[in-house]
């Protein structure tokens, strides 16, 4: 399995600092990172993931429109024939919501893991290493609290 991860900020969101840090951290950890930058559409994610045979798609969103921007995303990936682990992270809700609620929303949208904006890149790397080497059962997955 290739160790390529596709990274980008979805929708109209232009917050670039977080993915700049993530790109650097995942590269340093040995992954091949394809950084699509900010304001990336669902289709652009799918195309890039397909083209690079990515094992993971990392979606970032900071500006509070993540939920709308991700509607139907899993379908777009499937249609493109992408078979990759999908993570989303950042500041995922407008306002001062409880994160557990937010996590549920994005799990239901099909993301394998959901990270808040306090996430240390190292935690995401550890999680991805685990997800790519062994296929964790639902119970194991739960113990990493993501």
């Amino acid at each position, binding site marked *: 399995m290739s160790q390529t991860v596709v990274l980008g900020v979805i929708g109209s969101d232009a917050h670039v600092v977080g993915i700049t840090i993530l790109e650097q*951290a995942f590269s340093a950890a040995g992954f091949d990172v394809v950084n699509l930058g*900010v*304001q990336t559409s669902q289709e652009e994610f799918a195309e890039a993931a397909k083209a690079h045979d990515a094992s993971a798609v990392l979606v970032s969103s900071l500006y509070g429109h993540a939920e709308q921007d991700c509607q139907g995303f899993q379908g777009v990936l499937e249609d493109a024939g992408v078979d990759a682990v999908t993570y989303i992270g950042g500041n995922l809700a407008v*306002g001062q*919501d409880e994160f557990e609620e937010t996590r549920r929303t994005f799990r239901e949208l099909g993301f394998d893991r959901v990270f808040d*904006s306090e996430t240390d890149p190292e935690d995401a790397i550890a999680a991805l290493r685990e997800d790519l080497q062994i296929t964790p059962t639902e119970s194991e997955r739960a113990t990493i609290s993501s």
Partner: protein
Amino acid sequence: MIRDERIPSDELRRIDEEIRSNWPTGEDVDFEEAIEYHESLPDHKRFADVLESADKPLLQPRAGVPRLDDQIELLQYLHEEGKADLLPTTIDSYTRDNEYEKAQQGLDKALETGDDTLNGFPAVNHGVDGCRQLIDAVDAPIEVRHGTPDARLLAAITFAGGFQSFEGGPISYNIPYTKRHGLEETIEKWQFVDRLAGAYTERGVRINREPFGPLTGTLVPPSIAIAVMLVEGKLAATQGVRSITLGYGQVGNVVQDVAALNALKKLGNEYLPDEVVVTTVFHEWMGGFPPDEARANGVISLGGMTAAIAQPDKVITKSPQEFQGVPTKEANSAGLRTTRQVIDMAIEQKIDIDGIEEEQDLIERETRCLMDTIFEHGDGDVVQGTLKAFDSGALDVPFAPSDSAKGAVLPARDDDGRVRIFEWADLEMDEDIKEIHKARLSQRADTEGRDQSFRMVADDVDAISDGKLIGRPQSQPQGDV
């Protein structure tokens, strides 16, 4: 070829009509009638006059919600409970992308379900009437704050709607905010916005324009921010704007911040035509905040302290909930009152810190290098110069998402916490200035016993949210404390 030239009246009219047909509410704009409406407004709602005649820094928060009645309530609350002197109306992201249809859906959803999924006030959808209801209901001047690359329709509607201040500019609302728009395109579009503001100005309705100084908000070296402000100020002046507020975002080092605000004011008056009234605005820390309201209050207060010393004309406050998401109105007011308390306790004190002149001098020299290269790139034309300088990388902004900037320049803090340039890429700068930065950064590297690298930049990006100013390595000595 687009140049720094005033748009002729007929051209102004042509574009105006064209863009007003982009969305049904555009039809309701009538310039003459709008002038009358502005003339009917009381003195204390005239943004430029209130700002320019203030005798201490005025405070303004950020705030915008989708529904009109909610926005009225929010602004009234911030005025009464937060004691904001000036008020904002922050526009939602769909409007910023000119996706008025999506904004409408968001607004409709908000109206039906009460669920606010839009992150701001869709002023275009609310139209001239909606805007005026807001202006009428709130007893202080209100500014449009957004981040829109093509803000022509937004400007046409909000100016007619009674707003007398409009944030942004072709660079500052492009480079940090989008990768989809070319710089030439946004300059052209903002020439219209400024020209429209100029048309109101000519008729005695002085629309205040405020280029967005913080840019990417993240360790932007002062001279880069100031150069962008001067360019945008000049472009606006060419189109007839006469009240311009130049902005600057706190970097957190008091000496550097005060020096930068001084330099901004001085160079603003020097580079902009005499007929322009130049004011300054200081933005409390625009980078990543601590995930803790108590610590966030410390960050906010350091901004207040800096403002008390530098005395800009206006301060844009942050809320203790900045890290988490759009703040509640209570938190937003709290940020205002914390700032007010610090400023009012410190402002009557004589606080002259050593080294401010020296730092200011450095910032001015750097800014002049950048301005010189812009003029040279454009053979004296600022528009062409800006385009070419960004293109060559002679002008650049760190962490710029836009394709119009290289985004190759990288900042890092020196041992005193001042923002220096670690990676110059193609940024134009005199060699001796580069040497100064280099020396300061290598002093820091020595203190920390590590090489200068992207790791240092990344540590600095996180430092304030982690509770420090400088991103020291975890296990290393802490400097001269």
